[in-house]
């Protein structure tokens, strides 16, 4: 087992405080390597009932973590999906048992590139195996086993979380009664790969990165990582949303400074987002996770394509997209619906009209949250009835 203590060098946190299991079962990765006895960090909210029929698994996105709601004990900020998950919310933790695990390759307690490689007692860095979405999902299945959950009431996730969910349903067709993939895709588009490459190149261009060996020097390629985050933030907004939020407004000044300081609010926003991010995320993790996203192509895994991937699905799906999302477009989400339809699966689809872009799934978008709540509550009634019969 790799030693994790002290590796969160840029955070004031005790890693022991994070819930985790050690996955003993060897996990054969898509790249051919095998990992075993690795940590998988997770968090749960609400209570699992006696029938174990109220469990909801949430898959997090690229820069997310297991702290879905409440206060993230590492960052002391709100959980990333506090708008949707919590007491009385769309995913009501008074009613449901919500589980979320940090993906492998991540940096919030699950095995990742900043952990110690048992072969040489050095941080993995680029010796960490290249992982895939499928590897992430397989690791999380071990957690369900550990928690004694045979069938989830629902599994959900947005963005990369949605991609994990599609993989989860294809690989484990009997594990979820219902599924809500949100703002995602069944394969990464050229544009998405290009944006991820931009993020990676920004990190690699930072001399501090040093081929990923910065971890042992207890530093972080902050500049590169911040630029990578800025790229992401642009892609999460829409043109209209950005114009409305920032326009050409200046940042706490009356006129141009005739300098390269952040004159515009939008610049200031990006810089703030970028540099706040380096406090909580590991640069190598960004390389590994974006790679996993780029490699994701569900139809490639199955002869006969996407329809074949969803064959024999008993899971009831609700696909949701956002009209102004140009990162994971309505068209891409609809392709998932078409494939599910063609495979005969039970599928619903809703496009939420909004200017908020890809970020919409994290925001207080009422129509979205209402739709999500309506679906999950109705699925719970169905699932209970089915179990009774």
């Amino acid at each position, binding site marked *: 087992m790799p030693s994790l203590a002290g590796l969160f060098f840029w955070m004031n946190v005790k890693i022991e405080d994070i819930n985790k299991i050690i996955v003993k079962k060897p996990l054969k990765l898509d790249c051919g390597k095998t990992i075993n006895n690795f940590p998988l960090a997770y968090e749960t909210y609400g209570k699992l009932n006696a029938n174990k029929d109220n469990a909801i698994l949430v898959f997090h996105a690229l820069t997310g973590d297991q702290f879905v709601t409440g206060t993230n004990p590492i960052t002391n900020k709100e959980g990333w999906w506090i708008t949707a998950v919590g007491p009385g919310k769309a995913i009501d933790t008074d009613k449901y048992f919500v589980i979320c695990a940090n993906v492998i390759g991540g940096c919030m307690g699950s095995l990742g590139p900043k952990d110690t490689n048992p072969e040489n007692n050095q941080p993995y860095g680029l010796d960490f195996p290249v992982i895939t979405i499928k590897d992430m999902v397989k690791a999380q299945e071990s957690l369900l086993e550990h928690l004694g959950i045979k069938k989830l009431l629902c599994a959900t996730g947005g963005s990369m979380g949605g991609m994990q969910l599609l993989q989860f349903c294809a690989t484990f067709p009997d594990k979820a009664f219902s599924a809500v993939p949100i703002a995602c895709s069944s394969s990464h588009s050229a544009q998405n790969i290009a944006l991820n490459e931009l993020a990676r190149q920004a990190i690699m261009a930072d001399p501090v990165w040093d081929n990923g060996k910065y971890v042992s020097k207890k530093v972080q390629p902050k500049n590169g990582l911040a630029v990578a985050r800025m790229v992401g933030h642009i892609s999460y907004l829409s043109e209209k949303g950005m114009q409305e939020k920032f326009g050409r407004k200046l940042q706490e000044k009356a006129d141009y400074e005739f300098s390269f300081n952040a004159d515009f609010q939008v610049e200031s926003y990006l810089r703030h987002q970028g540099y706040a991010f380096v406090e909580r995320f590991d640069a190598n993790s960004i390389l590994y996770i974006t790679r996993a996203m780029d490699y994701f192509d569900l139809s490639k895994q199955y002869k006969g394509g996407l329809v074949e991937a969803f064959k024999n699905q008993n899971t*009831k799906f*609700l696909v949701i997209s956002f009209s102004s999302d140009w990162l994971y477009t309505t068209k891409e989400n*609809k392709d998932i*619906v*078409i494939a599910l*339809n*063609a495979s*005969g699966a*039970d*599928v*619903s*689809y*809703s*496009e*939420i*009209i909004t200017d908020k872009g890809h970020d919409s799934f994290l925001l207080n978008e009422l*129509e979205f949250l*209402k*739709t999500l709540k*309506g*679906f999950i*509550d*109705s*699925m719970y*009634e*169905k699932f209970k009835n089915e179990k009774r019969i």
Partner: protein
Amino acid sequence: MKKEFKVIAGLLPNNTRVLDVGCGDGSLMSFLREEKNIEVRGLELNQENVQQCISKGLPVIQGNAETELHQFPDQSFDYVVLSQTLQAFYNPEEVLKNLLRIGKAVIVSIPNFGYWKVRMKLLFFGVMPVTKTLPNTWYNTPNLHMCTIKDLFKFCDEKNINIKQVVGVNEDKTSLIKKSNLEIKNLFSKLGIFLIG
């Protein structure tokens, strides 16, 4: 439930697979699922209606029947239902062709422009008819291609579409329409419900 839906439900056998195109808030789908154990799917444009269907646990796809029927595979449903919307499409012929491709049989209902009150409005008052089944005025009606029961009969004949059964509806009364009573029923039915394919 409205009379029209009762007639449509009556035409559908138990335990079948049905696609309801323009399913609204899902009231027909709910009835079919609960009373006839029918496996239902809906297609609906309006966001609020979609939300209502989802809350009722009814599978519904938000989309436009005019442009998005292609996503359903050939013969993937036993029946496809289209209630009072055929006349609102830009290309009703294409939509009908698609419905017949998707379903082994199709149920189409139309507001009958041949109903006597409709004819009277135009004949005696010289204005576009506004009635209970046709509540809009000429400038805001969604109906682009109004037709009569007789028109749809003729259309099916010309396109070699097999008519299995036609039911005329007037308030609470229903009657079977055949070629022999077509003229009179075309005059006295507010709605025509066609089972074709």
